[in-house]
C-alpha cells in the first residue's frame, strides 16, 4: 500500500477503463485532426509566414486539445462520487494525483505524436535545428501542462461550471511554460537561436510545479 503500488493500480484501472471505452482516445484523435485542419483553414499557411508562427500554432493546438482531455480527468471519479470512496480509504492522496498526471501525460503525448505529422504535412515544416531537441522540449512542455492541469482540474471540480474553470486557472499559470515551449520550438525549427535557455526554464518549471502539486494535493483533495 505504498504510494507506488497504489499509483500503479490506479493508473492501470484508468487505462483499462479508457481502453474499454476507447471513446476518449478515438474522439480526441479526431478532435486533434480537426484542430489542425481548422488552424490551417484559418491561417492559410504559405511557406514563409507559417514557419514563423508554426511553433505558436502547434502549441496552442496542443493546449486546446490537452484542456479537453484534462477536463475529463476527474469526471470519471465524480460520476458516482467514487472519489469519496478513495478519500475514506487509507490510500495516499498523492498516489491518486500521480496516477492521473501520468495517465494524462501518456494521453497527451499520444495525441502529439499523431498531430505533429499533420502539422508537418500541412505547413510543410522542416526543422533546421536537431530533432531530438524538439522531443525534449515536447516532453518537458507536455509535463508542464499536464501536471498543472491535473492539479487545477482537481481544484475546479468543487466549483460550479467546472469545464470552464480549468482553463481559467490553468492558462495564466502556464504562460511561462507556454512561452518556453513556443520560443524553444521556434528556435529549433528556424535554427536561428539555441533553445538551451528555454529548455532549462522548462525543466525548472517542471520541477518546481511538480513539487508544489505533490505538496498541496492532499489538502485540495480533502477540502470540503
Amino acid at each position: 500500500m505504498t504510494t507506488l503500488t497504489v499509483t500503479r493500480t490506479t493508473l492501470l484501472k484508468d487505462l483499462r477503463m479508457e481502453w474499454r471505452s476507447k471513446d476518449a482516445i478515438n474522439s480526441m484523435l479526431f478532435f486533434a485532426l480537426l484542430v489542425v485542419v481548422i488552424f490551417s483553414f484559418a491561417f492559410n499557411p504559405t511557406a514563409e509566414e507559417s514557419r514563423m508562427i508554426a511553433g505558436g500554432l502547434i502549441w496552442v493546438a496542443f493546449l486546446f486539445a490537452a484542456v479537453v482531455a484534462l477536463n475529463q480527468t476527474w469526471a470519471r471519479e465524480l460520476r458516482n462520487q467514487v472519489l469519496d470512496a478513495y478519500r475514506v480509504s487509507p490510500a495516499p492522496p498523492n498516489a491518486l494525483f500521480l496516477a492521473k498526471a501520468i495517465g494524462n501525460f501518456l494521453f497527451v503525448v499520444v495525441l502529439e505524436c499523431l498531430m505533429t505529422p499533420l502539422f508537418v504535412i500541412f505547413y510543410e515544416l522542416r526543422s533546421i535545428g536537431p530533432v531530438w531537441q524538439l522531443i525534449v522540449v515536447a516532453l518537458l512542455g507536455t509535463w508542464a501542462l499536464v501536471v498543472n492541469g491535473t492539479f487545477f482540474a482537481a481544484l475546479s471540480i468543487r466549483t460550479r461550471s467546472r469545464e470552464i474553470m480549468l482553463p481559467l486557472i490553468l492558462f495564466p499559470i502556464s504562460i511561462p511554460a507556454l512561452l518556453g515551449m513556443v520560443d524553444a520550438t521556434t528556435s529549433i525549427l528556424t535554427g536561428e537561436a539555441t533553445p538551451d535557455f528555454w529548455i532549462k526554464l522548462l525543466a525548472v518549471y517542471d520541477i518546481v510545479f511538480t513539487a508544489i502539486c505533490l505538496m498541496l494535493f492532499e489538502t485540495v483533495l480533502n477540502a470540503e
Partner: protein
Amino acid sequence: MAGTSEPHPPPVILLDNLVKFFGRFAALRGISASFAPGRLYVVLGDNGAGKSTLLRVVAGLMEPSQGSISLLGAKRIREVAPRIGYMGHAPLLYDELSGMENLRYFAGLYGIPDDEVSRNAMRMVGLDPDLPRRVGQYSQGMRQRLSLARAVLHDPELILLDEPFSNVDVHSARDMAAVLGRVRDQGKTIFVVTHQAALMEDVADEFVHMAAGQIVSRDEVVRKSVNVGSMR
C-alpha cells in the same frame, strides 16, 4: 442509559459538541454522544435533519466546524481509516467496470492483494462474482448490494451506511438488512441512516432519532437475547 450487564466497553465513537456550518446554516448543532461497539444503530430523522452530514463528518469526509470526534480511540480519523467502511447516497462505484473489477480496485486501496476477499464480499451480498456485466448495467438493487460489498470489503470495525435501501425493492432490502444483522453479529458496529425503519426493526439494536441537527432521542430495542453470542 446503556444498562448492560457487562462492564462498559470503550465507545467506538465519541462525539463532543459537534457543530457543522454550511455558510450561516448549522447542519449539526452541537452533538455530544457516545456509541458502544458491536451494535447496529439505525439513524432516523426528517429530511435535512443532518443525518448525512453527521455520517460524512464521522467518516472523515468533512471537517467539523467545531467540536471533536474520537473514533476507535483515535483523534485523527486518517489513522483509523482502514478500520472504517462508508457507503454514501451515491453508489461510489465505477459504472464502466464489472463488479469484481470494482472490488478488486478498492481492495487494492486497502492493500488487500487477495482476490478471494473480493469474491467473498460479493457472495456475502448475494451477487455472483463471475458476472461479467458492467456496473452501469446493473439494476438499482444490485448496485446497492455491490456498494455495500465495497463498504465492508476490508472487514471494517465501524460501518457507516447512508440510505442503503433507497430505491431498492422490498426483497433486496430485506436481504441487505439480514446481511447487516449478520455483520453486526460478528462484532462490528454499524450505523444505518434510513427512512424505512420497519425494514430494520428485526436487526436494529438502537434507534437514534435526529432532528434539526441534533440527536433528540435514542431508543434501545429490547430483544430476547438470542444474538448475544450464540450465533457467532
